């Protein structure tokens, strides 16, 4: 005796059986069911036909598509490689600038120290002079750029 649930179960197993997902017990149950049920046997045959047909549908990529894709991929690979090389250059430059700044600061600090010892300037004055030595050019440049920007803004009005 088979009921609707048995048919449903058998059909599910038939659909997935090809995937090797069925345990031995289920296989045995399915075999027994198929012996007794002509409808499910027909479904099994239909499913096998469909699977065969699906596997024989010919879809081919043409040579032009493959060649065009390979060319695009190679070009993009080149671009990415160039970008990586540029990034390396930027990174190396950053490291070089940092090292130079450290060395320069150290040298300037010692230079100021030496000058202070020679000229007997007070202990408070020389660090201020040291900071000013670095900051004044930046401040001057900022003021100039600001003035130029304001001038241009006024000029364009």
């Amino acid at each position, binding site marked *: 005796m088979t009921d609707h649930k048995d048919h449903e179960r058998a*059909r*599910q197993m038939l*659909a*997935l059986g*090809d*995937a*090797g*997902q069925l345990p031995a017990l289920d296989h045995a149950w399915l075999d027994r069911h198929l012996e007794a049920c002509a409808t499910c046997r027909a*479904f099994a045959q*239909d*499913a096998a*036909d*469909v*699977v*065969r*047909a*699906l*596997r*024989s*549908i*010919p*879809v*081919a*990529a043409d040579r032009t*598509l*493959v060649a*065009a*894709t*390979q060319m*695009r*991929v*190679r070009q*993009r*690979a080149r671009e*990415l*490689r160039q970008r990586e090389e540029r990034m390396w250059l930027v990174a190396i430059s950053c490291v070089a600038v940092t090292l130079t700044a450290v060395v320069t600061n150290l040298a300037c600090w010692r230079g100021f120290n030496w000058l202070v010892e020679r000229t007997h300037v007070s202990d408070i004055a020389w660090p201020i002079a040291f900071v000013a030595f670095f900051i004044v050019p930046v401040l001057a440049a900022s003021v100039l750029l600001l003035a130029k920007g304001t001038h241009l803004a006024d000029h364009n009005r």
Partner: protein
Amino acid sequence: MVDEKTEIAQGLRRRDPDLLDRLIEQYQHRLLRYLLSLTRNRATAEDLFQETWIRVLERGHQYDGKHEFSTWLFSVSRHLVIDFFRRKQPASLDALLDDEDQPMAPPASGEPSAFDRVAHRELSERIAVGLDHVAYEYREALVLRFQEGLSLDEIAVVTGAPLGTVKSRVYRGLSALEPWMKGIQA
């Protein structure tokens, strides 16, 4: 001895152009067939074919070499298809995929499809036309399972769906093709 998956993963990390050339050659038909089954349009499928390989080049370092390369490749192309449909349609593809119970279109004849142009045998033609009328998620499951030969677990990885859902899609997909099965027998 380095196995093939590890070799591919290492090559992709190096962005080795020779390896990519070889992979494009090797997977050309399978990838195009999968894209055609999703888009049902040859021109769109070919555009996405190229985009997929560019994405493989750019994100190659994400391939871990543990899964089959084809599984990862299909997953990459699937995301591109979803992006494509999101740009093209107001309703996203995910919304379509979430609807497991959407009604299947009735069999129709004479409607041109991508498969019509490539299927030569009558039997395959019928099923190809039938596939065109099967709901998207069932069609994808059928194509991955029976055309591309992926296991159910691999399909679950590609589609991001639970294994139970994948099984259900394969079963429902085959059932949806039943009218065309009968056509085969007639």
